[in-house]
Structures are given as C-alpha cells and as structure tokens.
C-alpha cells in the first residue's frame, strides 16, 4: 500500500515537473519578460541591468530550476497588469472558485448517482425515459446558454435571485466564504446549477451504462439464483462494482469543474480564478497564466492521487499483486 502510494507520488512529481516546464517556457519565451515589465522610456543599459538582475542571462537549466524553486513556495512573480504578486491574486480568488466548484460537484453527485442507478434499475420505466431525455438536453446545451437562460428566468423575469457577483462574504482568516450569508447563498444557486448540469448528466449516463453492464454479470445472476434480496443485489453488489470504473472519470470531472468554471464565472461575473484567467489572457498577463496552469495541474494530480488510493481501498484485487 505504502509502496503503491509512493510510486504514484513519484509519478505525480514527474507530471508536475513537466507542467512546470511548459509554464516556464510560456513565461520565459512568449514575449520578452523585460519588455513586459518596463515602460517605453527605459534605456538599453537599464534593460540589460534588469535582465542580469532577473537572471535571464543564466543557462536554461538554471532558470528552470529557479522557476521550480519559486513555484514550490508559491512565488510566481508579479502580475504585469495588476502589479500585485500572483500568489496573492490567486489566493484572493481561489475561495470563490472552490466554493462554487464544491457545491456544484456535490450537487452533480447527489443527483447524478441516484438518477443513474434509478434509470439502470428501471430501464423501461416512464420516469427513466424522461430522465434520459432530460439528460440528453443537459449534455447538449452549452453551459453559457443554460446560464443566460437561468438569468433570464430567475433573475430578470421572476427577480428571485441575483444575476451576478458573489453577494456578501464573510472573512475567515484569509478565506472568504459566501456560504454563511443569505445573499451569498442565493448568489451561488444559479452558477452552481449551471456548472453542475453538464457533469450531472454525464454522471447519470455513465452510471447507467456501467450499471447495466454489471447487472448482466454472472455474479449478479448467481446472487439472484441464491435468492438474495433485491436491495442487497442492487446496492451492495451491483452499485459497488459499478463505482469502481466510474470513479476515475468522476474524479477527472470534478477536476474539470474547477478548471473549466471559466465560462460560468464569466456569465455570472463570479469573482473567481476563471475570471482572473480570462482577463489575464486578454492582457497577455503571462505570470498569471503560468501560475493558473500550475495550479490546475496540481489540482488534477491531487484528485488523481486520491482516486488511486480510493481504488486501493475499494478493489481488493489491487491489494495483492499476483496470487
């Protein structure tokens, strides 16, 4: 077990190093960092001096190593546009994105998994067919359209919910939370639904397909032949076996909820990292882009690691290698 986790950890570090290389290349070679930092009237000597001080004349490997060293302590330099340290900018925006992602991930799982199971067990039922049709709509409608429709209906016509921003937030240490105020919660509802719908429909279809497969397996047939109760068969046996392969994809989907909250954040003007990233692209704010890239890669790596460990806990076949 420990060996397995260590092995995975070593692989994760490798992945992060490669991503860091890309981020570094972006930082160092897309445009000239010195040009981006100084004004028009800086002399050539000043530029050369700055170049030397920033270590831009060192060899590639030394610069890469320095970049990694700094990145490991969270130092990504200054945002060109906002003239603030990038790590502070991200820390400021991270809670907003994280809360939004967390709520929509929980929503997608809590609704998606039971719906998937239900449609698999009652394949021919009227309700199942209804769910499947709805999920088809959910999977094919683009996120921004759903967001705009929600704003139109609940924000503009009915005027039930706020249409942009995070509402009032409470400061807990460096973390800002919108989960504890009424206006924060009501601001969260529409963006969270918008973000959750695609993942939810994907989970419904995934669980349904896998569970139908498992229900045809010999061990389920044998369990029926032993007269086990339908509840035992459906949940203790079939659902557990369904979740093993589905786990990976659900894990990656949760990662992409965080990574691709960008569109939702733009539609609802949600002050999260996605919005920051969009603005960074518009202004060629390379340090922010590099840091965002690293952070998202890090989140994916962590989720993957957690999924791998979960596999280990759920599937006994991995615990013993060979026989």
């Amino acid at each position, binding site marked *: 077990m420990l060996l397995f986790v260590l092995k995975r950890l070593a692989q994760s570090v490798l992945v992060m190093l490669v991503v860091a290389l890309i981020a570094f290349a972006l930082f160092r070679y897309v445009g000239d960092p010195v040009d981006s930092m100084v004004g028009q009237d800086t002399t050539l000597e000043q530029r050369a001096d700055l170049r030397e001080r920033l270590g831009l004349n060192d060899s590639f490997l030394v610069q890469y190593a320095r970049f990694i060293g700094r990145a490991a302590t969270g130092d990504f330099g200054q945002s060109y546009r906002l003239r603030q340290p990038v790590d502070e900018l991200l820390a400021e925006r991270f809670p907003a994105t994280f809360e939004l992602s967390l709520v929509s991930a929980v929503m997608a799982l809590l609704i998606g998994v039971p719906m998937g199971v239900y449609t698999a067990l009652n394949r021919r039922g009227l309700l199942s067919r209804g769910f499947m049709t709805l999920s088809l709509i959910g999977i094919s409608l683009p996120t921004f359209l759903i967001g705009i429709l929600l704003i139109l209906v609940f924000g503009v016509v009915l005027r039930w919910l706020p249409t942009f921003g995070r509402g009032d937030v409470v400061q807990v240490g460096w973390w800002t939370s919108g989960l504890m105020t009424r206006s924060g919660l009501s601001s969260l509802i529409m963006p969270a639904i918008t973000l959750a719908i695609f993942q939810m429909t994907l989970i419904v279809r995934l669980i349904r397909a896998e569970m139908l497969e498992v229900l045809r397996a010999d061990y389920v047939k044998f369990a029926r032949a*032993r007269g*086990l*109760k339908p509840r035992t068969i459906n949940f203790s046996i079939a659902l557990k076996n369904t979740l093993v392969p589905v786990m990976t994809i659900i894990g990656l989907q949760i990662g992409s909820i965080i990574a691709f909250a960008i569109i939702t954040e733009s539609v609802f003007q949600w002050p999260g990292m996605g919005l920051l990233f969009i603005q960074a692209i518009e202004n060629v704010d390379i340090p922010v882009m590099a840091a965002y890239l690293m952070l998202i890669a890090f989140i994916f790596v962590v989720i993957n690691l957690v999924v791998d460990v979960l596999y280990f806990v759920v*599937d006994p076949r991995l615990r013993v290698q060979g026989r």
Partner: protein
Amino acid sequence: MTVLLALDGLRVEFPSRRGDVVAAKNITLELNAGEILGVVGESGAGKSTIGNAAMGLLERPGRVAGGTVTLEGRRIDNLPPEAMRQLRGARIAMIFQDPLTSLDPLRTIAEQLVTTIRTHLPVGEAEARRRALHLMEQVGIPDPAVRIDHYPHQFSGGMRQRVVIALALCAEPQVIIADEPTTALDVSIQAQILDLLRRLVKDSGAGMIIITHDMGVIAEVADRVAVMYRGDVVETGPTAKILGDPDHAYTRSLISAVPRPDVKLERFPLVEHIESAGPRRDLDLKTHWLGQRRDYQEVDGPLLAVEGLQMLFRTGSLFGGGRHEVRAVDGVSFDIRKGETFGLVGESGSGKSTIARLITGIYRPTGGAIRFAGTDLTTLRSRTALNRHRRQMQMIFQDPYSSVNPRMIVRDIVAEPIRFHKLAGSEAETRRIVADLLDHVGLGARAALKYPHEFSGGQRQRISIARALATRPRFLICDEPTSALDVSIQAQVLNLLKDLQDELGLTMLFISHDLPVIRQMCDRVAVMRRGQIMEIAETEALFERPQHEYTRHLLDLMPKMVKAGDERRTAAG
C-alpha cells in the same frame, strides 16, 4: 422415491419481432431425491432454458407459456416474484458454469456466504459465520478459517467453483441445478468437482440436475439422462441405457460423434439431424492454384525442429515490487516430420499455446532455436525473410467468434493473405481462388459476400481454415480448433482437417487439452506440464502404454463414456 422437482409439459417462449421463438416445448421431467439427472444436448437445444425456467430466472422477454413446475409438491411457476425469491437458494439452488465470474470480486468469501445464509435462515452473524466455515470444510477447501476472509481472486479456478458450490448449499436446498459446472475447468479439477457433487448428493439426499454438453461428464455422475434436441426431450432413461443402447436416432448419432478415447478411427462418424455444411466441391489439385507452385525448399530431415525452446515472461514494473518471472516454456525440444500430425496435449497453463505463438513469431523466444525447413527462425531479422517463412505456416485459432474480423466480408477475410503476400496475378484471379477455397472447405462460393456473424461457430471455423489455406502453406498450427464447438460440428471440422491434410500433404501441429481428440487426430504426441515436455511417443503407444506418471494420471482422469454396448456404438456410425 419422492419426486423433488417435476416439470410437466413446460413450454418456454422468447417473443421476438419475427415471432415467438420456442426454446423449450412440452418438457416433462422428474427429479427424485438422492438422484443426479443429466440433461445433455448441443448448444441451442434448450438445456439452460429449462434450468432457468425452473429457477424463475428466465431472461426477459422469455416466459413460461405453458405447463407447470412443481417443487416438493408445490406449484412454483406461477408464484409472485417475492415468494419465488424466498425459495431460490433456500429450496432450489443453482451452480453456474464459470467460477471466475460467478463471485462478487469486491467482497470476501465470508461476506458473501454470511449474507446468503442470513437471507434464508434466522441466525445471527456469529452463527452464520460458523455455518460458513462448516460449509467450506464440506466442499473441501483447505484451511477454511484463513481462506474464508480471502477475496475470490485469491482462489484458483477449481477452488472458486468449490466456493460457488458452498454458496449454493448455504440453506441446504433440496434441488440443485448445475449448469455446465465443470466446462471451464481442467480435467483433473473437473474430476474433483464431479466427485464432490456426487458426494454432496449422496450425503444430503438432495436431487441434482446436471446440464452439460459433455457425454463424459454424464457418464461419470448421472444416474439418469434426458437428451435434448431443439427444445425437446427426445429420450430419457438410465445412463447406461442411453449411452450404451439409445433408442432415438439423434442420441445415437450424437454419441457416435464423441471422439473415442479407446480406439482410433479413420474418420469421425457424422451426425445426421444437424446443420450440414453443404456438399464439398472437390478441386482438381493437380491443375488448381491451390496445388500448384508449392515451390518450397524441400528438406530431408524434419520439417520443424524445436531445440531447447525457452520463454520467460517477466512481470512487475520498473519501480520493483511484486516482480517475478514465469517460465511459460522451459527447455522444450521436439521434431515434426513432414506430413505428420504432431499433438501437444496438457492442461491450461502448461505452455501449449505459447509454443504455437513462438513458432509463428508472435512472441520472440528468450532461448533455444526453431528450425523450419533447415532455417533457424529465431535468427531471421529482415521482414522479407520472415514473411517468406510465415507464408509457409498458418494458424487456426480456438475461438471462431473473435478470430475473424466482424467488419469484413468473407471474401476479404480469405483474400487478405493472398493480397498481402501477392500470391495472385490479378483481383479477378484472387476472387476466383477465394470462391474455390470456400467451395473446398464446404461453405460454398456464395458465402464470399456475407459477413462472419451470418455464420455459426463451425462455419466460422471453416472460414478460418480457408483463410489459412490461402497462402498455400505446408505447415498448419491448430490451437484447440474445435474446443468451442459442439461434438457434431467438431466431428465435421476435424474430418475436414484430415481430408485437407491428405490432399495437400500438410504437416500439422495440433494443440488440444482433449485426449480423445488427440488420439483421433495425431500421429505422435507430446505431453506437456508446466512448460516442459513430460513424454513424447507415437499416439497409439502413448494411449496403450503410457510411460510417464503424469501421462497415466491424465489418461485416468479422461472421462470414460463407454461402459456397455460398445459394438452398438460403432454400428451407429
């Protein structure tokens, strides 16, 4: 004698768009206490349907359309689902074919046994576990106190089947239906499981129905036999009577098609009553393409000589941990003479198929030499040199369903090697050759435009054979070519192979786990175990006077079908 289970006029239908398919019609059977009833027949005969109908487990949309099922005097075919569920496992239980897939991979044996026991019996957790341990002892699992907390993947196939049996016995059911309980197992394990089943029936006084396609299994364990043919029971009677002196013509021809372990016949007797493969149109091989230009370098010695062949598989990863070597083939040497059929026999995992893959170059050996017509194939590196040799040897695989490309029409499947090796001058010639080949293997030229799924298993194996012949090979490797087929189809395919060998002077390597088939097909045999050859001998000598202990062991385990009425059997063919 008390009747435990009675089927009376049972009719099972599967409604489909093209009308109802009748899987079982008017089945009347009785199972007595303490008896093993064998139900035998070929695939599609409706054997499993009967078992599933009795259990109330028919797959949708199948349904019981008529007749009754009575369990211990109580009609059960019309019970509501919940009442039927309570009977399943408690009064009537079932054992499935494949022990590798019958157990939930995520839960320990203890959990699975305890859940099943507590579903049917009002006992606590501790008592259920005590019973579970006792059951494991009963089915002969060594060290139950430790093994009970293991997961299914930690057991071998035979042990898993014992676990499956223990699970079926949890609530001491009176009727046990075993659907092909030993088909997925090696002969030695099969013998143990059959022993176990017989002992359990004797000890408990329960009744058992064994559903199988294997006459050998029937001969070993059944007290009475019911023979099924196309959804109908054509004959029922005591085992010795059915096997020795059957009344119905189908039974007679079915029995005659079973390869005989005791004497070698020139050709298999063919079964009437089955899909026939259409008449073969023989080609004049002196003038035909298939017989021409066999411009291979002639050799004096053996066509194929294998010397000290070795194949190691390494498992485990770069990071270490759980790393070990498997010696799949370990110092194997044999010669195959021109024109002979050389058999390789052994249980699963003995390395038979690995040798076939080494010879054809699918794997590269870790040691030893493979000399084909005097050239050591392991030293060849260039693609052209390898292709020149590969053209001379072709392979026929076990599974007729996965060894032909389902998205290609038969013409393209058979023409592929001709096109690849550029053996024909033009596309028109290729098509003519393919048509002739299909005629020659008994499929008919019109098969060329169809897709593989339109053919049965036996017919697909003929496609494979036609494809193998398409390079005009002189060496054919058959890896379990008929073990996925019914006996009657097996007889046809094996006869075809014999005919082709005679006509074309082919040399064959014939791999099988089935000793009677080996006896019918091979001139010489090598017995393999754990990657090594135990004994090589002329086939007749091996069967009559086995030298090695392991050979004797295998021969002892071979199910002996014939107990009486031997002359009658020969006459039937």
